[in-house]
Every structure is written in C-alpha cells, then in structure tokens.
C-alpha cells in the first residue's frame, strides 16, 4: 500500500465496488430471484391483477427510495407493499393465494423496474441494500405463504394479527442484522455497535412501514385492490417528512464542513487540516466502538476544533497548535467552545472542543477529558506532525512520538487505534 494513511478515508459505503463480505449476500439474492421467477413461470401466476397492483406499488416505492443519515437507504413504500403482498389473506371476497415464490419474484422484478429510472439518471443501484430488503420480504413470504395457502391461518383479526406482527418484527431484525454486517465490513466498525445503531435509526421507519403493510393487507379485504393505493397514502406523508429531515441533516453537516474551512482561508491552519483531522478522528472513534450519534458529535467537534484560533490577531505559525504552549492551547480551545456554545444546540460538541487540549491524565486530579476530546487531541497532534504527507516512514515516526507521551498527554488506547489505522499491518 503506497498511500499508507489514506485507507481510513471512505466516509460511507463503497458504491460501486463490492467488498468481499457483500458478495455472498448479492449472490444469494440473485439465486433467489432466479429460483422464484423459474418457479412462478412453471406453476403459473396466481391472480395477475393483484400481482400487477402490488408490483406497481413496490416499483413506485423503490423509485421514491430515501437516503437516510449515515449513508443509509430505505424504501418504506416498497417494503410496505411487498410485506402486504406477502401477508394478504383475502382480496375482496376472494382468498389471496400467491405462492411464496410468486411474492419474491414480483417484489424482485418490481424493485428492479423501480431502480431503472435511478440508473438512467446516473445514480447507481446499491445492490447490497436492495438485496437486504429483498431478503426481509423473502423471509416473511417463505414463512407465511405456505401456512396461509394451506388454510392454517385465518378467522378473525385477533388470531391473524399477532402472527403477522411477529413475522414483520423478525424480518426487520433480520434486515438490520444483514445491514449491520455489511457496515461492519465496510466501515471497520464493531458488529454490536453497528447493529445497535441500525436498530435505533431504522426503528421509526420500520414501525411506520410495518403498520402500513398490515393496513394494506387488511384493507384489501374491504376495499379490494384499491386499498393498495389508498393505504400507501399515509406512508407517503411519512416519507415526505423523513426526506426533509434527512435533507436538513445532510445540509447541516455539509455546512459545518464548509464553514470549518474559514480557519484555512484565514491562514490559521494548513489547507485540509480540519477535514483530515475529522476523518481520522471519526475513524479512530469507530475503531474504539463509538456509536453513530457520538461519532457525529465527534465529527462536528473535530471539524470545528480550531475555530478558537479566529480570536488570534495573527495565525500561529503553520497553524500547528501542537507547537504552542499549553496555556495558549487551552485558551484557543476555550474560545472555540464559547463560539460553538452560542449555537445553543451543540453543547456537548462545545464541551469536547473545550477539553481537547487537556492531557488525558490531569495532574490536578480533575475529571479526565471525554473520549472524543482525547481522540481529537491525538488526531490533531498526528496531523500537525504529518500534514498531508503520505509517507509511511513519517507516519510511523509521528505515532512513535505520540507514544512517548502516552503516560500523561495522549490516551494509549487512542494512540493504539491511530497506529492501527495509519500504519499498515506488517
């Protein structure tokens, strides 16, 4: 590896290249599609109208898929439509009896149709995410359809509902596990942490999606196939709100990233310093198993960690705060925290910035600084020493220098994580 320091860089999941761990998933999904389509072709399509109606809803939902914070994807309407198709018992007066294979085939084909317009405008399809969604639907269909088609499920809502609800929850959990596995692989995070983040972040959407799936499935009994369109409406409202939320989250991060560069334009720090420190800090945080919410705060704090230098009339030479006396560092940090505190909503970020120059073992037995501050301290010092250089020898030298100071200044576990990231394993 020639560019030793750069392989912690990917901020999100790779969009084109599939990592080794993702191949089995996509291959399995591909086999599932081939099997289900072949099976359906042999046995013939049961109730073409229903297949088309649900297929249209799924394709529409896939077209409207959402990008969520943390580089995630969701297609609530498509998932609700597919789950409803897997769970529907009666459409109007007629019993609905699609086979599991047919449900999977319709879902897969509709998802592909819905993804085509995205491809046409140059947004690549994310096969792993689509596979994970298909897998969740397949899990419900493969369990529920054989039972329902054999007439084992039926009667009143209070006997049907618990089974459906249980299956939906299991499917949601399965999808979260699969997604967490993908993220563990791609982001070098820990599985337990990734699963926790996944369940937390997807909970609200999963609840809305699951409830809508049940609504559609039951309403088909009263309203026939019209229910498919009518009951997708509540979810559309939800989706619009979620999209706006995801949009402002993205804008927020973008803006902080951009405005953090004012210190570079003003000549206070070297170009690219805040961006590099924040990338490295987030990578270290992930390595140490921090959950996503904490990582976001860490990223904000790392981006703005030098904002306090704006209070200086003249920039510190070279912007390298590591070369400035402790007392000065502390005042810069204090001023930066004051600035961030004015925003009133980022108090914990301000606290991280305030404590960034404190040694990890305070002499006066004060509270040690929070982990995020210790991470930023190490990442900042490393970047001040190495800069934008990609020389592995220089990286090793910088890590060695930080190690010398682990007794009091830098947190040893943070420096360990840093060295794992910047020095390739022998």
């Amino acid at each position, binding site marked *: 590896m020639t560019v030793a320091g750069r392989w912690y860089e990917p901020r999100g999941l790779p969009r084109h290249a599939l990592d080794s761990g993702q191949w089995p998933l996509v291959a399995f999904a591909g086999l599932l599609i081939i099997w289900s389509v072949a099976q359906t072709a042999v046995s013939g399509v049961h109730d073409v109208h229903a297949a088309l109606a649900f297929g249209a809803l799924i394709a529409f939902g896939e077209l409207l898929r959402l990008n969520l914070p943390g580089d995630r994807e969701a297609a609530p309407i498509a998932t609700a439509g597919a789950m409803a198709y897997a769970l529907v018992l009666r459409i109007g*007066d007629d019993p609905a009896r699609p086979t599991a294979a047919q449900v999977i085939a319709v879902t897969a084909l509709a998802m592909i149709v819905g993804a085509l317009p995205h491809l046409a405008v140059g947004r690549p399809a994310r096969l792993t995410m689509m596979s994970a969604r298909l897998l969740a639907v397949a899990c419900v269909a493969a369990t529920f359809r054989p039972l329902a088609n054999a007439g084992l499920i039926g009667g009143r*809502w209070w006997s049907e*509902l618990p089974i459906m609800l249980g299956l939906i929850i299991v499917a949601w959990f399965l999808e979260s596990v699969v997604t967490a596995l993908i993220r563990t692989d791609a982001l070098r995070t820990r599985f337990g942490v990734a699963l926790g983040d996944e369940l937390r972040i997807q909970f*609200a*959407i999963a*609840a*809305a999606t*699951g*409830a*809508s799936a*049940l*609504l559609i499935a*039951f*309403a088909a009994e*009263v*309203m*026939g196939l*019209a229910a498919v369109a009518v009951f997708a*409406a*509540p979810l559309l*409202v*939800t989706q*619009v*709100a*979620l999209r*706006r*939320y995801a949009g*402002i*989250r993205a*804008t*927020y991060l*973008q*803006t*902080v*990233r*951009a*405005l953090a*560069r*004012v210190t570079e*334009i*003003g000549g206070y720090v070297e170009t690219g310093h805040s961006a590099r420190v924040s990338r490295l800090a987030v990578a270290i945080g992930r390595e140490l198993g921090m959950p996503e919410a904490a990582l976001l705060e860490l990223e904000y704090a790392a981006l*703005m960690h030098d*904002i306090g230098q*704006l*209070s*200086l*009339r*003249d920039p*510190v030479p070279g912007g390298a705060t590591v070369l*400035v006396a402790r007392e*000065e560092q502390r*005042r810069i940090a204090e001023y930066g925290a004051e*600035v*961030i*505190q*004015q*925003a*009133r*909503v*980022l108090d914990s970020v301000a606290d991280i910035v305030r404590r960034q120059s404190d040694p990890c073992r305070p002499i006066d037995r004060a509270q040690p600084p929070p982990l995020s501050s210790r991470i930023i301290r190490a990442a900042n010092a490393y970047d001040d020493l190495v800069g934008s250089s990609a020389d592995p020898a220089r990286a090793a030298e910088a890590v060695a220098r930080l190690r010398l100071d682990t007794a009091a200044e830098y947190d040893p576990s943070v420096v360990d994580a840093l060295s794992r990231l910047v020095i390739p394993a022998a």
Partner: protein
Amino acid sequence: MDKLSRIAWLYIGAVIAAAVIVLAKGPYAGLNWSQIAVLGLLLVACESSATLLNARGLAWSANTMASLAAVVLCGPVGAVLVSCGTLLGIRRGPSVVQRLFNTGMYALSAYLAGRAFIAFGGHVGTPGQSSFPGLIGPFAAAAVVHVAVNFMLLHGVFWLTKDPGGASARVGLDSKLWLTDLGYGAFGVLIAALWSVLGPFTPVLVLIPVFVARWAVAQFAAQQRAYEATVSALCQAVETKDFYTRGHSERVSRGAVMIASEIGMRPERVGAIRYAGMLHDVGKLGVPTSVLQKRGSLTDDEYAAVQLHPMRGLDIVREIGFLDEALAGIMHHHERIDGRGYPMGLAGDEIPEFARVLGVADAFDAMTSDRSYRGARPIPEAIAELRKWAGKQFDPAFVDAFVTAIQRDGWTAPEPVPAEEPLRTIESL
C-alpha cells in the same frame, strides 16, 4: 388571550353554547358507545400531541382524523361526543377558556360535517365491501365542511382578539394548514373502512405512520433551528476578527430579508437570501486584520487583498449544496449597477438579483455603523446616500423597497463601538 373584549367573550360564549345545545338535543338512541369511546381515545391521543404553531397559542393537531371517522361510523351526534375528547387533551398550554372554546369549535365542526355527510347521501354505520366507492363523495363533503367550519371559527376568534397592528391576524388564513388538515382528515375514511375487519385495533395501526410522520416533522424543525443557530454562531466567530463589523452579517441578513419580502420574493428564496446575508462576508477572513482595521487609505496591494474577499467567501461556501442562488449573491455583492464594482465588473441586470439586494443592505449597514476610519451616520443621512447612489451603485428598485420597509418597520442601528478593544494576539495570551 390575556384581556378579551366583550365581543370576543360573546363570540366564545356563543360557540360553546351552540355546542352544548347540539349535545343536549341528541338523539342518543342507537349509538355504539364502545366505538365512541375508542375514537374518543384516538382524539385525545391526537390532541395531546398537538404542535404549537406560533407564539399566540395557535396549535395544530390531527383531531380531524378521529372526528371524521366518527362522522362515518357513529353519525353527527356520535362525532360531537368524540370531539368532546378535546377537553381532555393532555398538553400544557391552553387555559380553561381556550380548552372550552376548542372543544366547542370541534364539536360544532364535527356536527355540521356529520350533517353534510348525511345530506350528500352517506350512510352512517360501519362500511362494508359494498360501501365503496359510494362513500367517498359524502365523506369528501364532510371533510371540507369540517375543515371550513373549524377554520372560520378559529379565524373569528383570532380576528376578535388580535393585537392592534399585529400581523398575526393573518395566521388563520394559511392555506397550507387547510390542506394539511384535509390530508389528515382523509385518514378518517381509512379508519372507518377498516373497522369491519380490524375493529378497535384500527386506530392503533393508523396512528403509527401518522406519529412517525409527526416525529419526523418535529425532528426536521429541530434540525432547522439548530442549523440556523450554528450558521449564525460561526458567522459571529468570523466577525470577531474585525470588531467594527460585529453583528454586521446578522444585520445585512435582516436588511436583505426586508428587501426580499418587500418585493414579494417567494419564501424559499427569502430563506436563501437570509443565509446569503449571513455568509456574505465570510471571505473577509482571508484579508489580513491589519488591512481591515487600517485607519487611512489603503495601498494598491491592500486594496487588491480586500477586493479578493468575495471570491474567498465563495471558496468556503461553494460546497454547501443548497445555496446555489445565494452563492451568486455572495460572489457579486460588491458589483455596482454602473459596472465599476468588483470582482467581475458586471453591470445592470448582469448582476444576480441576490447580489443587488445584498449590495443595498450591506452598504446601508456599513454607513449606519462605526468603522475604524469614521463614525456611524444617522439613518436619514444613510437613506439619502442610498437614494443619491441609486442607479450608479445600487439598483433603484431595491433602494425604494428598502426605504419603504425601513420607514414602515424601522431599523435598529448597532450600538456605537465603545473604546479600543484590542484582539488577542499570541503575545497577549
């Protein structure tokens, strides 16, 4: 509603009395009480999660959903009973009078909606398979009547209790709110339709997507506030470098919004110009402090450094995706109508609209605040100066709009800069 006039008291009393009369008249025969109880609970849940829309206590909740479902399932009187759940909403804020008025208002809306439903040929009761699509027409009529009555009564009370001269009386006419209410009202027909299959569990399933949507809207609003506060804090940080310009971006932003609203820009664009105003001088950071605070005239080199600041600002904010039009404003806010500005020397209509608006607001604030080389000028003098240079430096239309807005709403000039307040330097740390 601190001090109510006699007319307002009469109005509120009349609404409550009408609701009581409707309630007393009945008939109560043949009502399904357990259904009413479940829908009443749904309404209490909706009312308890109301969102406050403005400081005067206008709040919005999804009550329409429950009372319209009751219109179909239980008829007008049942719907009135369900609406009485408004009284029990668990939320802080409304006083007893407000609660009583709200309840009376919802009861009347529900009753009239129920009457409209029957008048348009709707059958009260749990709909079955044969009810669709025949139910849709009467239901739509009921929904429109419900929303219209609700807003007329609400508008009435806001009109009667408005502060003299306040702009808040317009609030009841917000058409978006009408549409949102109609949209949520449509959930009522879904609840009614599913009742025959899912019984009392229906509201639970319908509520989940609704609550998730409300949660997302609340999150959005919180993020938006956080975003504004953060941008403003960072802008203030940039201004610390030149203490003469403290608060400048905030005021230019306010001035630009005044102009933009005066000439009737769309709300999204007004929002964008607000950010453009805040961020317009970010590039000043690239100009050495000694130049910014110099007393006396600048050398050619120093002037060149100052002229570079719009481009530097653009460098910083270019990566903020949503700011497209604002970017042009930031880059060109020092252009002049006669083409003698910088950085590009654009003239007339070549200058983006945002830049021309920012130019006026920027110059006005610069004139009315202290600078290192001169003191602040009084507002009338600054206005005269704007008028004098309209057509040369400024766009006359925007100068007119600004002057009109200032004369109507006033302008808060900054406090004079007290005394020399040196910046921290490495040595002084």
